């Protein structure tokens, strides 16, 4: 059910390449089309991280401006702009959390989203694919501890040490939960990809 808006938002993923080409030609309407396709999912992701609608709107604006300013480095034929945009959105939100909480920023992570070429070769419609439907179910299948650890990492940008402190568990235990959770997700998504 909660994937329905995503499916609607990404139903025309095959049009991403055209949007990217028009963005590279500096056509503002292309940004409008990109927003219409990914604005809601980016906002939902950011809002879940920062939990403030006003801040979330500011960060969505920053996200789309960053895409607008860096899209020239994107390979429109190979790149999947959706995953890149979500990565930028998540990093803007977590950067805000870390700044407001006085936490250290992860320089490597932020450098990565400034390199859109790293998002080439992905399935253009990945966010509307069976994998997208599978990941939600796979997360639900995780144990409570595993799911919490993954959510703290993904939605709050915590390191494993910080997750251990937050959960009041030994670091080794948390590392095990995180690793097992990621393996389970990889296996579930991979299995869905193979069966598809």
């Amino acid at each position, binding site marked *: 059910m*909660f*994937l*329905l*808006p*995503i499916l609607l938002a990404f139903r025309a993923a095959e049009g991403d390449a055209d949007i990217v080409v028009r963005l590279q030609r500096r056509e*503002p*309407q292309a*940004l*409008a089309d990109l*927003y*219409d396709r990914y*604005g*809601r*999912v980016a*906002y*939902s*992701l950011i*809002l*879940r991280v920062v939990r403030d*609608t006003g801040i*979330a*709107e500011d960060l*969505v*604006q920053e996200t*789309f*401006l960053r895409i*607008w300013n860096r899209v020239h480095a994107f390979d429109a034929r190979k790149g*999947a702009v959706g*995953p890149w945009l*979500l*990565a930028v*959105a*998540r990093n803007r939100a977590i950067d805000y959390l870390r700044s407001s909480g006085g936490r250290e920023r*992860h320089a*490597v*992570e932020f450098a990565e989203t400034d390199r859109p070429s*790293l*998002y080439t*070769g*992905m399935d253009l419609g*990945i*966010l509307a694919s069976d*994998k*997208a439907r599978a*990941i*939600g179910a796979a*997360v639900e299948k995780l144990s409570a501890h595993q799911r919490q650890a*993954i959510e703290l*990492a*993904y*939605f709050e*940008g915590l*390191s*494993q040490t910080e997750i251990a402190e937050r959960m009041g568990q030994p670091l080794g235990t948390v590392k095990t939960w*995180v*690793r097992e959770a*990621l393996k389970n*997700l*990889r296996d579930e*998504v991979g299995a869905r990809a193979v069966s598809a």
Partner: protein
Amino acid sequence: MNCSELRDHYELYALALAENPERDEIRAHLDRGCEVCLAQMKRAREMTALLGAISAPAAISPRLRRRILASVGAGQRSFGWTPFLAGSTIMCLAAAFYFGGREWDFSREVLRLNEQSRSQIIEITRLNGAFAILNGPDTTVASFGEKTGQPKGKVFCNLTLGCLLIASNLPQAPAGKAYELWFIPKAKGASPIRAGIFQSESDGTAIDVRRGPVDMDATAALAVTMEADTGVDVPTSTPVIVASLAPALQ
């Protein structure tokens, strides 16, 4: 490290959870274009992207779209209300000024008409009083000023209604002066009785009405003197008009 040793760390790297030495190893592999690591990272980034799409959908404000487009200089070509609002405001202000001015003019006109009406009512009342005296069955008449160049006219007196003085050839009183009417008693040594002040018109005519009962039996004549325009208690100048009532009473 070789790629197989890094197998469980690509998702950690994609989530910024990888720690050294694995983190530096993956970066080194990616920097030198390691095809295995590039493929594994693509898969890991796909999964990270998918995780980003599982958030519960939230309602987004329509103004955010306008904000974002405006920030790249893309104003929406929508129907612009601003010129119409500005025009409406200007028209409303103009109407307010116009009708405010009209209202002020109307107020002034109403005040002027009220003043005029009040003056006319006073004049009508005075004339009604004069007509009542003229038409009174027991009204008597006395003339004065038969000589050329002197003020002349008539005095109509009624026992109950009062006296009416109609005069002509009466010079205009200078500034600060007015004509004062007196009842002259018959009794010797009695002082003249004040009967009010009046002014003549520019053509030398004057009509003065003194309403109220007149003791005709005790009054010998009516006289007019020129006095200060505030009136005096006793005459201070020679009368310009003296109208004897005695013949009328006989």
